[in-house]
């Protein structure tokens, strides 16, 4: 019954979305948004209902629904049960759909009668929704009914049948997905970011369609872009954190195709929010912004396609499914349709003022756009290259870490350098003397920081260069804040607060830039100064790795409802093996219904470093441990949080009648969020 209800809401949502498109097209000329009231209301309600019904089916253990039987079990803890609503293929599409519903509603609230741009945008969102719910109604139906059951799980499903069979028990989630709480949070964040870019895309299409190609669509969507970008950032950072905490190989980023698929829209979106500032401030780059917003949206669909079609082998990929061809078709429609519309309107996009000097904020943002675009291009080409070569020549090859690292390291360092200069450079044309005045202390501090790493005995040149550039960036921004705040009559702290509040866009961006610099430092130290070792320990035996001594204390076992936990207690001592600093418990979790235990590493985080232990094997009396020591690992997550915080600061509204800009950095505008660095 639940299944029938769920399928019905999908159909209702599909029809309502189609109605949004039809009514949108009919009323885009007049901008009469009231005609869309009913379709939008019905669509949004049905989208929500679909999600709620799926959750009800999961929470009531309705194993006559294939999706429920194959991805949850009665023993699954509540939080993972709830997350089961989006943890697997069909559920993820439902989550996507409900996000679209939410965003359609939020957009609709801001559209008044006579707003042609807004009505057009709603129609485009309706079209995207038609596709998405169409996918749910056909190849990716989460409510498909089980017609052939195993004892646990479902062997075959049909769209609808009255002869449903029910599995006795569900198969339970993929063990990797129920091993850590982050798995419940990471996908919704990422999807919010992905789906959020539908809104700027919809407005851009509407702007082209209604021939209102000025920066108005950017003004209206700039908050959407920053919010989506922030969520995408949260999603990527959490994904790296999950990988670090769960997978046990001691890393957070592997240039896996699916990781690349999430990183790609992030890169293009980062370029977009920077170049959007240039258009809003200087009127330049109008065409380029259309290209970027279309590319961002296409990249989110491409990412979805790569993850869900099974064309590329990846740990993240869902199992092979029938939805691949449909997604590819949609991607083709988006790319061809939107670029064709863009090409048709291109002549009418006004040629705006030109770049006056490369040595200016405009110039540096252009440079940033070039670097980010090349970066994104390298990621796409590297990811697709094996497929293309195989299709052309039949040769099989792989593009891995070494290629991506070789591209990413120099590009990231260059980007870091452009942040420092670009953030404090005036618009249009910077007098070299002014620029030098703003940067001189930062240059000195950065170089001193780099030199101090050498003096401290760091023998990794990568770390030294990264620290030099990162400290330069942070110092340039902080010194700028001090300069501007000191010029005000208030006490320094009050003045700094006022400065930030008056220009939340600009200073939010600078906070994000500081976060990026922190992330960069951590990326360098955790890759350049990491210690890795594998040790075999008998009970009572000790071994030294880095500055620590490890002693195998005892094994332990525990039985939870859904899993069997076996682990070892390892004492971490100081270098001399005298004082116990910490006792760690790396474990292996064996989930019900599976045969292969999932390693669960433990991490001991201090300000200095992470000590990371994972069980790699062992016998009755000995244990084999992977030991990793990552200096300043916490800075990666902290820096990520700072980046996101910057994004949200940038969203604060300027106070009404903002104070006169004369004591502010008059050359700055709101909103210049973060540059890139691979997370």
């Amino acid at each position, binding site marked *: 019954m639940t299944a029938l209800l769920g399928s019905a809401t999908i159909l209702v949502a599909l029809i309502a979305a189609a109605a949004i498109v039809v009514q949108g097209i009919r009323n885009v000329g007049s901008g009469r948004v009231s005609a869309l009231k009913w379709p939008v209301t019905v669509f949004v309600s049905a989208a929500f209902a679909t999600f709620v019904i799926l959750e009800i089916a999961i929470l009531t253990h309705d194993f006559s629904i294939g999706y429920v039987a194959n991805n949850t079990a009665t023993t699954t803890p509540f939080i993972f049960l709830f997350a089961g609503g989006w943890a697997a293929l069909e559920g993820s599409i439902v989550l996507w759909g409900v996000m679209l519903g939410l965003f359609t509603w939020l957009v609709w609230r801001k559209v008044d009668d006579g707003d042609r741009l807004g009505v057009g945008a709603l129609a485009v969102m309706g079209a995207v929704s038609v596709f998405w719910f169409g996918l749910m109604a056909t190849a990716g139906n989460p409510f498909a009914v089980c017609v052939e059951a195993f004892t646990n799980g479902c062997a075959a499903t049909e769209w609808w049948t009255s002869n449903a069979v029910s599995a006795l028990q569900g198969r339970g989630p993929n063990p990797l997905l129920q091993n850590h709480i982050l798995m419940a949070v990471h996908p919704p964040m990422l999807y919010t970011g992905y789906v959020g870019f539908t809104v700027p895309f919809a407005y851009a299409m509407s702007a082209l369609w209604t021939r209102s190609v000025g920066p108005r669509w950017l003004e209206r969507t700039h908050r959407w872009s920053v919010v989506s970008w922030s969520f995408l950032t949260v999603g990527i950072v959490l994904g790296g954190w999950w990988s670090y905490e769960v997978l046990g190989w001691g890393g957070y980023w592997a240039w896996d195709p699916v990781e690349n698929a999430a990183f790609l829209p992030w890169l293009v979106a980062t370029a977009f929010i920077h170049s959007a500032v240039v258009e809003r401030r200087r009127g330049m780059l109008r065409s380029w912004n259309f290209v970027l917003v279309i590319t961002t949206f296409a990249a989110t669909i491409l990412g979805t396609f790569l993850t869900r079609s*099974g*064309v590329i082998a990846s740990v993240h990929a869902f199992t092979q499914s029938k939805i691949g061809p449909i997604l590819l078709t949609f991607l*083709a429609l988006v*790319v061809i349709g939107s*670029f064709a519309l863009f090409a048709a309107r291109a002549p009418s996009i006004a040629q705006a003022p030109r770049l006056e000097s490369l040595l200016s904020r405009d110039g540096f943002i252009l440079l940033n756009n070039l670097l980010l675009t090349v970066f994104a291009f390298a990621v796409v080409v590297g990811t*697709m290259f094996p497929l*293309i070569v195989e299709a052309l020549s039949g040769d099989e090859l792989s593009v891995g870490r070494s290629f991506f690292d070789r591209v990413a390291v120099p590009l990231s360092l260059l980007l870091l350098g452009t942040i420092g200069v670009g953030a404090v450079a005036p618009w249009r044309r910077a007098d070299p003397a002014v620029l030098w005045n703003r940067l001189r202390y930062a240059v000195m501090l950065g170089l001193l920081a780099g030199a101090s790493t050498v003096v401290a005995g760091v023998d990794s040149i990568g770390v030294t260069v990264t620290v030099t550039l990162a400290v330069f960036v942070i110092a340039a921004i902080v010194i700028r804040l001090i300069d501007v705040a000191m010029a005000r009559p208030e006490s320094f702290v009050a003045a700094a607060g006022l400065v930030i509040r008056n220009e939340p866009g600009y200073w939010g961006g600078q906070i994000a830039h500081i976060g990026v610099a922190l992330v960069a430092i951590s990326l360098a130290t955790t890759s350049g100064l990491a210690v890795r070792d594998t040790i075999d320990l008998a009970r009572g035996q000790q071994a030294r790795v880095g500055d620590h001594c490890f002693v195998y204390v005892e094994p332990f076992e525990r039985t939870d409802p859904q899993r069997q936990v076996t682990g070892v207690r390892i004492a971490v001592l100081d270098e001399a093996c005298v004082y116990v600093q910490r006792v760690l418990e790396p474990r292996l979790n064996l989930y019900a219904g599976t*045969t292969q235990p999932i390693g669960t590493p433990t991490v001991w985080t201090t300000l200095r470093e992470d000590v990371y232990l994972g069980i790699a094997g062992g016998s009755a009396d000995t244990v084999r441990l992977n030991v990793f020591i990552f200096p300043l690992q916490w800075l990666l997550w902290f820096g990520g949080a700072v980046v996101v915080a910057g994004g949200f600061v940038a969203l604060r509204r300027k106070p009404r009648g903002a104070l006169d800009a004369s004591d502010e950095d008059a050359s700055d505008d709101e909103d210049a969020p973060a540059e890139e660095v691979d997370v």
Partner: protein
Amino acid sequence: MAIAGIAVFFAISIVFASRFGSDPSLSSSPLIGKPAPTAPVALADGSGTVSITDFEGDIVVVNFWASWCLGCREEHDALTRAASDYESFGTTFVAINYQDSPGNAQAFLDELGTSPTTVYARDEGSRTAFEWGVLGLPETFFVDRDGVVVGKVSGPMTYGLLSLTIEDIILGKAIGDVTTGEVENR
């Protein structure tokens, strides 16, 4: 420029489309046409080791299996039957247990039965699987009388496929790669 971009996009779409339905983790075996690996492998009963060179002149069927592999369960009967049916043609079957505990492996054989004409071996440290380039279970390699790998089947085998393959080798026909279904990973 836009046209060129769209053309490139089309080309890439076709590349993608050509991959639908194929298992991206599978590729053909570079071993075919090469001499079979000769490194010794431990016998399951612990009574020593065995090497492909011990069966010189025989057609050798090397099957990798594990108790956790569903496809192995499916094809087990076909393998034991063929091992006795083709013994008189000069065939030897070697069943190599891979990534498994000896207890689970023994339980699997106790449940499904063994064949007296099959050599049961155990791959310690996955060294043998490495030599053969095993990509997933079940996988079966066919070695001709000259010790050259002539065929590989990925995925579970039926008796029909097994007998056809062996007869083709007896007749000296080329085999190559055959994929019958998904191989399982652990």
